[in-house]
């Protein structure tokens, strides 16, 4: 049974990795601690629900396309309208409070619009499917989540390393003053990055919504996990985020087997053990 617990922990880690990767991207490029990230996840779950209600025949994984498109637009617009304006000061606390303010507004508007009752997406029986390879039941949806996470990490890494836009994003992250001299407007880069981050959170929100019920508070409840994933992996490192997610997922499920009342205690303790050993994260750069 322990093997099953660990395998399920790794699969849960895929979801946690998805929670963290958008956050890691924004932090890596703009140095903003984006408190809104949890609301991105919850809002995307509601967007997915809305689309699923409009077209009930659609396969749940196909929901990704409209969710990503809408989320990207929202992230882009939020950054362009608000966050860029708060980034003029060198003090990182102004954008932090701004994203905090936006998150409170978005969360409570969701409460007003959708109510606090748990919702779920009933799209075919996809969420209940499972395979049984070695006598260990493994859900198809968690497996798909991990596979999707791995695919997105590879794609993101490819875009950042090998493409023109990726080079521009990395250059902006390194020095936003110097890229201006090369004809790049940092705020436009930030818009795209925030859009991408929201799109990644959108996928995470969709996966969460397919897996379990959700409320407007589902995002903020998972904000700490998202942060832990990012810090554990090393701020701004995508592979680190993936690995951090898996470490936390395994720690949580093993901990819950040891003591069903411990909640996320073991995940938190493992987090502490790791950051004490490596204060800059698993893949972080030593300063």
């Amino acid at each position, binding site marked *: 049974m322990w093997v099953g617990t660990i395998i399920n922990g790794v699969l849960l880690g895929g979801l946690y990795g998805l929670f963290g990767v958008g956050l890691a991207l924004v932090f890596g490029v703009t140095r903003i601690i984006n408190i809104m990230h949890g609301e991105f996840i919850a809002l995307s779950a509601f967007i997915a629900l809305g689309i699923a209600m409009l077209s009930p025949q659609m396969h749940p994984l196909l929901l990704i396309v409209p969710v990503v498109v809408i989320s990207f637009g929202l992230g882009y617009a939020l950054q362009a309208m608000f966050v860029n304006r*708060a980034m003029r000061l060198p003090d990182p606390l102004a954008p932090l409070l701004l994203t905090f303010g936006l998150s409170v507004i978005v969360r409570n508007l969701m409460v007003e619009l959708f109510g606090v009752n748990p919702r779920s997406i009933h799209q075919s029986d996809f969420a209940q499917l499972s395979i049984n390879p070695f006598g260990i039941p493994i859900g198809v949806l968690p497996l798909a989540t991990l596979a999707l996470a791995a695919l997105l990490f590879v794609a993101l890494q490819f875009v950042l390393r090998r493409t023109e836009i990726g080079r521009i994003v990395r250059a902006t992250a390194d020095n936003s003053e110097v890229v201006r001299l090369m004809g790049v407007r940092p705020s436009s880069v930030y818009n795209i990055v925030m859009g991408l981050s929201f799109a990644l959170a959108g996928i995470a929100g969709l996966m969460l919504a397919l897996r379990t019920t959700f409320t407007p508070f589902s995002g903020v409840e998972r904000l700490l996990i998202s942060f832990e994933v990012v810090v554990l992996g090393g701020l701004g490192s995508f592979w680190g985020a993936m690995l951090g997610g898996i470490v936390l997922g395994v720690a949580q499920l093993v901990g819950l087997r040891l003591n069903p009342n411990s909640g996320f205690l073991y995940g938190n303790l493992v987090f502490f053990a790791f950051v004490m050993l490596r204060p800059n994260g698993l893949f972080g750069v030593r300063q």
Partner: protein
Amino acid sequence: MKRLSSPIVTLVAFAAGSAIAPWFVGDRGVSLLSEGLLMLAMAQLWNLLAGYTGLVSMGLQCFVGLGGYTTIFASNYFSISPYWALSLAPIVCGLIGGVSAVFLFRLRDAYFSISTWVFSEVIAVVVLMTPGLGYVTGMTLETARGIDFETFLLVNFWITAAIAGASVLGIYLLMHSRLGLSMTSVRDDEIAATSIGVNVWCNRFIAYVAAAAGCGLAGGVSFMGALFITVTTAFDLNWVVAMIFIVIIGGIGTLEGPIIGTVIYYGIRELFTGVFALSGTWYLIALGTVAVITMLIAPAGIWPLIRDRFAIEWLSVKRKVPYLYACEADATRKSPIPHEQSYFV
């Protein structure tokens, strides 16, 4: 001595005001004032960490909760007056803060912020699982049974006012001391501070332990007044969220900022839930809107905006460069720096 006059007037006015306030504002007013003054003290402590020493903590709710639990547990367990038990809260919180600082200070910036939050979550679960602390149902302050409630409220209010006054006065005096000067130097430039012989770690440690002890005391008073404590209310993230909101809205690194921030924070709440009689959701939306608007027009906070617009000083912790005084004394010599200019140190 011109610099001292306005803080002294403020202190005397505050002491006199809080001494007589209970007879003018009614029970509802007293509890609102208590809540606001405690929050002001906690916000000043968060400001001490973030605004003066550069430690952005997201885990001070840990000490609020521990202070509350220490007070209620000690009072029940030893059957002593809650006021005596209260004096244990800052000691316990200071100790735990000190021990945790040894580990947490290995981490920098965002790593530190997130880890303080995680630390608080760990402590919350540990308290939840510890026998004798009431598990999920929480604890009631049993020693309060025979107490005269009127007097209890009144004394609580005065303790609260004393804590708030002490936090402002303490930080004012600290910032005009040698220690305060070295703390701000750590915030502004760690490497430069080290190079002139400031012990960075030690400065931060003192500030962190002080903030932990202070938040513990505030938490103790808050839950003593509530007569009841649960893990969810005690270790609520909203404690630190309110501190951050109040400090950044008002103006970080200033003493006046948190005062203005507290007035705005509770003003919005009373306006929306009291005067307009709207649900808590709309109050939170209004709060978020205020945060967003303030960060868009005045990212440094409201007090710096007012101060610079009207050129006023109230509880300023600015220092003037000694050289400028020399210039003022010797009027015949031409100063290379304009006289009015003063510097943040």
